[in-house]
């Protein structure tokens, strides 16, 4: 504690039990219904009706105590009693309805996602009817943009009032916010007096801020600095797998890739463990399918043959042979265009590893850098493969990813998958309510994608957090990345 007093943040420590947290994205608005950096929920200001249970990776009660909706369209949600907003007003059914209504007015994304036709509030119970049978409705309420706030407060952008353990005391757009303990928190007030939640987009600067003692917890320090951080006494580095997958998207509209054996060859060529070890320095998990293996609907896969020899075998089955060091079929060499983009720094490196491994078996891969993958891939079809990164179960349900990526209508269906069998499975999933049956269908869809190698999955990157372990107590690095500042967080 003595040593800490010489650090620049000593003034903050005089306020009592205080933690400084540094996050890697900044925000200019705290409106929980539109802010896509989800700072209000991450900073412990707001809460949603349901949350993700990080241990079981299922949807768990939060502001809602229980829910029913066996037909998938008529939902009854019972709210928790005795919850108050940070201005002391009770959280009633009417207040929750007003908050959900506002979220749908302010954000077209929320409106699209919830598909709500009508909401009726009766005391602490909500009756919600969706526009269509929509079984993943409850899991969509995990979305931080559905946070419950008191809409009678006027300045939502700069001072949202929620139900969380911390209430906002000041906000500097793009720089930081200060929150202090809300004594009336329903789940037990925090032992901390306050938290500083600051932003810095530069990974190097984040690591240095932790080492200088200016902050206590940093999100995603620079991977290259981890050895230095680990060597520093009192700093702990923690990493946990996320719901994100780095994948190799295959453009099924290209003649060569219409052959499943060529796609299998591509899949076999990806040296997943090497990529995890060399590019992510071990901070990731090799992926077989899109979903994190710990999710209830992640299939267990039969190990398929991998490596250069397996790839050559597959290509031979597809009619290719090695002529003059080139993989050829009917006199034409196999040449592929691979898209990648710099916004996620590890993707271009993965592309390079793939390129060099492909070259070893006589395949020419041309790497093309693009800016915004979503736009480019949707508008241009002059490519074969693309590195892409996607959240596959952000709210603990497979519906989002399967619909967006494999349904013919999906906005992220860049592989151009239009497989009636797969579409039928997804359609059936969209009609199924019971979580167990949904899990079976999601698993079947993931199996189908795997068997037909519609896309190939490389790895699940980890979220890395470093913190001062001599000071911070009860920090949990969550997989969902939604819940950061909680009422359990404390100092030693």
């Amino acid at each position, binding site marked *: 504690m003595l040593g800490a007093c*010489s*650090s*620049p*943040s000593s003034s903050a420590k005089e306020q009592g039990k205080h933690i400084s947290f540094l996050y890697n994205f*900044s925000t*200019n*608005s705290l*409106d929980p219904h*539109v*802010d*896509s950096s989800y700072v209000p929920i991450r900073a412990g200001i707001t809460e949603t009706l349901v949350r993700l249970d990080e241990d079981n990776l299922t949807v768990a009660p939060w502001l809602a105590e229980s829910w029913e909706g066996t037909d998938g369209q008529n939902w009854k949600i019972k709210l928790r009693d005795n919850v108050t907003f940070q201005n002391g007003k009770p959280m009633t059914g009417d207040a929750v309805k007003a908050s959900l209504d506002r979220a749908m007015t*302010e954000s*077209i*994304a929320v409106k*699209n*996602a919830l598909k709500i036709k009508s909401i009726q509030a009766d005391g602490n119970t909500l009756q919600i009817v969706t526009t269509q049978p929509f079984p993943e409705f409850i899991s969509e309420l995990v*979305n931080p*943009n559905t946070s419950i706030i008191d809409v009678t407060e006027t300045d939502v*952008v700069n001072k949202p009032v929620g139900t969380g353990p911390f209430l906002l005391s000041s906000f*500097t*757009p*793009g*720089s*930081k916010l200060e929150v202090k303990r809300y004594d009336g928190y329903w789940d037990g007030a925090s032992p901390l007096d306050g938290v500083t939640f*600051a*932003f*810095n*987009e*530069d990974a*190097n*600067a984040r690591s*240095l*801020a932790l*080492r*200088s*003692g*200016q902050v206590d917890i940093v999100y995603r320090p620079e991977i290259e600095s981890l050895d230095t951080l680990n060597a520093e006494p009192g700093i702990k580095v923690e990493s946990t797998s996320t719901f994100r997958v780095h994948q190799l998207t295959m453009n099924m509209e290209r003649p060569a890739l219409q052959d499943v054996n060529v796609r299998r060859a591509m899949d076999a060529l990806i040296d997943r463990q090497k990529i995890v070890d060399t590019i992510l320095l071990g901070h990731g998990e090799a992926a077989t399918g899109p979903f994190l293996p710990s999710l209830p609907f992640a299939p267990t896969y039969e190990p398929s043959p991998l490596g250069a020899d397996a790839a050559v075998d597959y290509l031979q089955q597809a009619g290719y042979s090695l002529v003059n060091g080139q993989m050829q079929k009917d006199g034409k060499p196999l040449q592929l265009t691979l898209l990648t983009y710099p916004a996620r720094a590890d993707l271009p490196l993965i592309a390079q590893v793939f390129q060099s491994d492909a070259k070893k078996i006589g395949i020419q891969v041309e790497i093309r850098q*693009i*800016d*915004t993958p*979503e*736009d*480019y891939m*949707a508008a241009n079809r002059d490519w074969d493969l693309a590195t892409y990164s*996607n*959240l596959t179960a*952000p709210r603990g349900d497979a*519906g*989002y990813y399967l*619909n*967006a990526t494999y349904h013919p*209508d*999906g*906005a*992220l269906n860049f592989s151009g998958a239009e497989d009636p069998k797969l579409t039928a499975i997804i359609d059936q999933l969209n009609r199924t309510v019971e979580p167990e049956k949904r899990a079976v269908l999601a698993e079947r869809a993931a199996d189908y994608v795997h068997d037909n190698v519609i896309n190939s999955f490389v790895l699940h990157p980890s979220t890395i957090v470093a913190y001062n372990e001599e000071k911070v107590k009860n920090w949990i690095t969550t997989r969902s990345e939604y819940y950061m500042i909680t009422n359990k967080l404390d100092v030693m």
Partner: protein
Amino acid sequence: MGRILIRKFLETLGFVLFITFISFLFIRMAPGDPVLTILNVDELSVSQEQVEALREEMGFNQPLLVQYGQWLLDFVRLDFGQSYVTGQPVMKMIMGGLPATLELTGGALVIMLLIALPLGSLSALYRNSWIDHMSRLLSIIGAAVPSFWLGLILIDLFGVRLGWLPTMGRDGWISLLLPSLTLGLAISSVYVRLLRSSLLDSLGQEFVRAARARGYSELRIFWVHALRHSLPPVITVFGVSLGSLIGGVVVIEVLFAYPGIGKLVVDSIRQRDYPLIQGYILVMAAIVFVVNTLVDLSYRYLNPEMKLKERKTG
């Protein structure tokens, strides 16, 4: 004076129209539009149809000229639009960040003056001495080192090792020190060399010799005659290099998490937040105009010859 201002004003109007039109074209022609950000396709299930519908609703399917005309109409009504991302009025957001950026630019200029004035003067006065060699070496290093890297070194030294200064954020003047030092160091190298050569030029001029002949002290010759005479080219370059200074501010703001408009525009470019980018360009054009006018006016004070020329020709 009045005529100059009116002429400047008309010039600016043309300039603003030109710059906003060109930037409008470039921003809209660049790949990507905000629809995907607004719909949050990264995390929410969206169909192609919904994407197309929003594109239509936001007018992105209209011809560029129609879209620009609409923007211009709003501009005349002093309506600069709202950010697609935060829903806040663009001008409110920019004005919120402007003080921080001006603070940082001001701090950098003070550092620059503190470095460039003495170093530039000394190397001109003691030409080819060790101080001249050292200052030239420093300016080469200064010009070669990227400012973000310099910033990281300063953070490491003053924040981590010595623990004297905060490494980020905006909490009073103390947090202004490191970012303005970084930016000031980065830009001062240009001015050290410029001031040196301009001073050498002045010191060789007739009027300096005349002043010497009159027996004025070297100190007075330097401050009153030579330095004043050598400032106009330095200030001209400053007017021109204002753009790169602003560019430098953007990098420094991101590195030090300093909440100015540079950081704001980086975010808005990433998210294709058109109204905010457009508003930023407008405000920057206005600032460049004001600074250039001040630069023009300052010549008349620094170099009385120009006032004479104007009288003769006008």
